[in-house]
């Protein structure tokens, strides 16, 4: 388990060297371009792949953030934008990883199958702090809807983030911070 005090700065896109270095438990600051997608967008992305059509963004090497942001006030690029719960996207992860997705940002534990797929595809899953949405929005410097505008908060947005505060949950070696962290503090014998 990585130590929290060695905070790492990561510049996107994720390369193999970075992916090898980061470990479950690391606190990281992410800078670069990421894409937003949640429930309905995931459904559409996977349907697009299954139909053999082109996705609305280059998925190879990309990072997807599970978020449906609040509308932006006129003086801001985006409204509050914290993570939504990740397990709802679990059924769509494998085909996206196969297409080249390298990172996911959300909150909450992933299924066994997703954790295994993350390891197999040499990818990573980060947790952002749920409910810290106003703070997270301050790290988003650019935002633009690039697909499915009719989905409103669920549309796909291209974001440029600077020093986005995250924790590494699932790394390329198959470690899981939820498991490790909870085990460490549990006195429950059930």
């Amino acid at each position, binding site marked *: 388990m990585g130590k929290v005090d060695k905070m790492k700065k990561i510049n996107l896109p994720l390369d193999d060297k970075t992916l090898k270095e980061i470990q479950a438990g690391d606190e990281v600051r992410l800078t670069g371009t990421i894409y937003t997608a949640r429930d309905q967008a995931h459904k559409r992305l996977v349907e697009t792949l299954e139909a053999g059509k082109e996705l609305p963004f280059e998925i190879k090497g990309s990072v997807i953030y599970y978020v*449906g942001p609040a509308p932006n006030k006129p003086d801001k690029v985006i409204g*509050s934008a914290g993570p939504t719960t990740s397990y709802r996207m679990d059924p769509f992860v494998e085909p996206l990883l196969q297409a080249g997705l390298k990172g996911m940002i959300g909150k909450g534990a992933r299924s066994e199958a997703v954790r295994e797929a993350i390891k197999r595809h040499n990818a990573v899953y980060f947790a952002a702090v749920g409910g810290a949405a106003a*703070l997270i929005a301050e790290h988003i410097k650019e935002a633009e809807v690039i697909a499915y505008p009719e989905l409103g908060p669920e549309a796909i947005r291209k974001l440029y983030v600077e020093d986005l505060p995250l*924790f590494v949950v699932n790394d390329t070696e198959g470690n899981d911070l939820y498991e490790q*962290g*909870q085990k460490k*503090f549990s*006195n429950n014998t059930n």
Partner: protein
Amino acid sequence: MQIIKTEEIENQIAKKVQKVNFELPEDVEKAIRAAHDRENSEVGRKILKQILDNSEIANNERVPLCQDTGLVVVYARVGQDLEFDGSLEEAINNGVRKGYKDGYLRKSVVKDPLDRENTGTNTPVIIHYDLIEGSELKLDIATKGGGSENMSQIKMMKPTVSRAEIIDYIVQVVKESGANACPPLIVGVGIGGNFEKSALLAKESLFERIDQVNPDSKLEKLEADILEQVNQLGIGPQGLGGNTTALGVNIKSYPCHIASMPVAVNLNCHSARHISLVFNGEGR
């Protein structure tokens, strides 16, 4: 007869649904601060600090604490001596529609659960009506997030069930929710009534302050025992490990059938947004 102006209800709701989304309740913020000081996990402390920093930003910038500005739930307690100059239901929905637009709050409601098309207004609101004595209208309003709502559960237990089994069930619901409901949580519990009444009680309990002593001493002790066990789970802030899994447990109970022991658990995230408004014939 006291006449309530529905326009006043609409305006107040439009204002207050914004405020409630920008500000953590004072009792919750206090509990997070206290939890931060005693949390054993370093990661846990960092998360709690981030939640407190977030609260400050949201408050100063007048932006929502959480992007999920919730589905609006209203417990309307209507004085039976009151009269309204228009539709109460319309006034509540209009107020929410206006507040969510003016406050740049997220619209999180779909028109039809199967078609999933967003209404674009964050309405309709869910309203539970109760007729009470007197000439006041009380509106308890929550903007309830989907993440914690999804992890809520209900169980029709046996009437001979032990106290320990009830505690085990509630603790198990929290355990299963893991990081998904955005801990630190507030655990709302409804015991008794029937199937739907227990769920209504559980949600209603989330309107109570978490530092308030339950008037029923039996329930007060039950709340304390559940809180202790929940915080032994190790889930911690955001599920990354620690001893702050819940900030409080609130229980409400009601008489029930000899065959039944309904237990409902409605989880709330740390962004526990709720507000109470009172109206009378004089306007407020």
